[in-house]
């Protein structure tokens, strides 16, 4: 297991990527590496700005987008009270970070692997691609609504085979679903990894189960502790038992979770 810790670190950069009417801004937040020696892409961390005081008692969970020796980067969309404040951070501000938390994606070598990202779900795949032992076996399919420049897509498409499909209106959905399913079929003997909004994950899960395709999906939930203690982020596992998304996930085998 990857060693985890809780540290106070400084913000290095808050890069504004773009804004969109609903909900709001897209930013990349880079903080000092809190001493993580390794992590498994798909894992997440909890972030809480030191100056928040007591008004917001919880940290916020974010998928770890990329890690290098000096820094850790998160890709964040402003959706509420916490993300609004995180997007306003400035270099040298102090954040409390605990992680890496949860279980990441499998990364088998020399296995054709389809990365299915929906919107913000692209976040963990940046580090996944950078860390993968055989990136030539990876294929990224990215479904998005705001234009591509809101996302760290370009940096990723330089490294692996990558396609993006934009949903301009809900009329585009049947085509997008067909593309996702066709790509999954192409990887029926490999591995499919998915991260994105719940309806997107349901599509992936249903198709994976129907065609017996090996797939892993990453869930998102509101969390208070991030470490498996508060039981506020549970979902049902394959047997219908409540399990913590933070500790037993956020990445689950498609057959092992009800969404």
């Amino acid at each position, binding site marked *: 297991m990857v*060693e985890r810790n809780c540290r106070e670190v400084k913000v290095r950069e808050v890069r504004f990527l773009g804004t969109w009417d609903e909900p709001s801004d897209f930013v990349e937040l880079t903080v000092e590496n809190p001493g993580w020696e390794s992590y498994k892409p798909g894992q997440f961390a909890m972030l809480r700005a030191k100056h928040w005081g*007591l008004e917001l008692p919880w940290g916020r969970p974010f998928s770890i987008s990329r890690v290098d020796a000096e820094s850790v980067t998160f890709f964040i969309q402003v959706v509420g009270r916490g993300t609004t404040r995180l997007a306003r951070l400035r270099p040298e501000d102090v954040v409390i970070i605990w992680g890496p938390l949860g279980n990441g994606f499998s990364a088998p070598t020399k296995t054709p692997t389809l990365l299915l990202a929906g919107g913000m779900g692209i976040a963990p795949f940046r580090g996944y691609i950078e860390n993968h032992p055989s990136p030539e076996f990876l294929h990224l399919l990215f479904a998005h609504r705001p234009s591509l420049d809101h996302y760290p897509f370009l940096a990723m498409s330089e490294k692996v085979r990558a396609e993006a499909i934009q949903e301009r209106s809900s009329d585009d959905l049947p085509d997008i679903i067909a593309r996702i399913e066709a790509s999954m079929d192409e990887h029926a003997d490999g591995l499919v990894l998915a991260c994105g909004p719940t309806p997107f994950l349901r599509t992936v899960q249903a198709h994976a189960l129907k065609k017996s395709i090996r797939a892993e999906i990453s869930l998102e939930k509101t969390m208070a*502790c991030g470490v498996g*203690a*508060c039981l506020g982020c*549970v*979902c049902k596992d394959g047997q219908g038992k409540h399990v913590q998304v933070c*500790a037993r996930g956020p990445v689950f085998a498609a057959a092992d979770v009800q969404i």
Partner: protein
Amino acid sequence: MIDLRVEFAGLVLKNPIITASGTFGFGLEFSSFGDLKRLGGIVVKGLSLKPREGNPMPRIAETPCGMLNAIGIQNPGVEAFLRDKLPLLPWRETAIIANMYACTVPEFGELADVLAGEEGVAALEVNVSCPNVSQGGSAFGQDPAQIAKVTDEVKKRAKGKPVIVKLSPNVTDIASCAQAAEDGGADAVSLINTLLGMAVDIRTRKPTLANVVGGLSGPAIKPVALRCVHQVCRKVSIPVIGIGGIVSAEDALEFILLGASAVQVGTANFLRPDQSFRIIDDLPRAMIKARSDSLDELRGSLKLP
């Protein structure tokens, strides 16, 4: 060096900081963030005789300076706790307090029997105050006669282990509930459990929690907790454990000034997972601020007008 040791109700703790039930899992979840042996005590997640799945989602909501929860005592059951968790806990060094939840008086007795037989369990905390379950919980905690009855049953089967009764603030007179616990034979009372609350989402026009209502905790409730602990300390002669919105060593001392023997830290464990350890580190400094080097001297030294 300031001595932080506290002794009460037959317990000897290395410091007065205990983690509160439901906010610290079974302790093991936090072992990467601090040495569990440094804690005065750990009250584990509420245990029932049989495993419980708890309430449907969503179960938690952040509120200004606090949070609501309606977990519904999801737990693996007492046997799984004793088999899988307790042996991994540093129970020789830190008091492991078992929080017990049951729906009937005989069930409480049975649970006490199972837990009290374990060397690693230092004390029993009787949950007669959970607001998130339809049976048991605060249904017991709102009736002093029931509190006395449950306490008596648990005490009879506790094999001499200290019995702590955790009280609900969702009552007209918490001091009479504490009195009932004392009359029933409790060795200590702990208070307060969460305040019954609610949150609403105007976009969906639904309650934020699937359970509709939930328990409010965090710094928002500290003034209510202080008032309750004050009233109870003036009423009963058994030791009191203060709970409610404690996030700092200063907060802990406020409860001790009222007369609390120790405190429990709950929601603060979500501020950051090492917060309870930081409060312990900070206690000596906060005591100096209160111009004292002794918890015994500070305890109950509140100056009333």
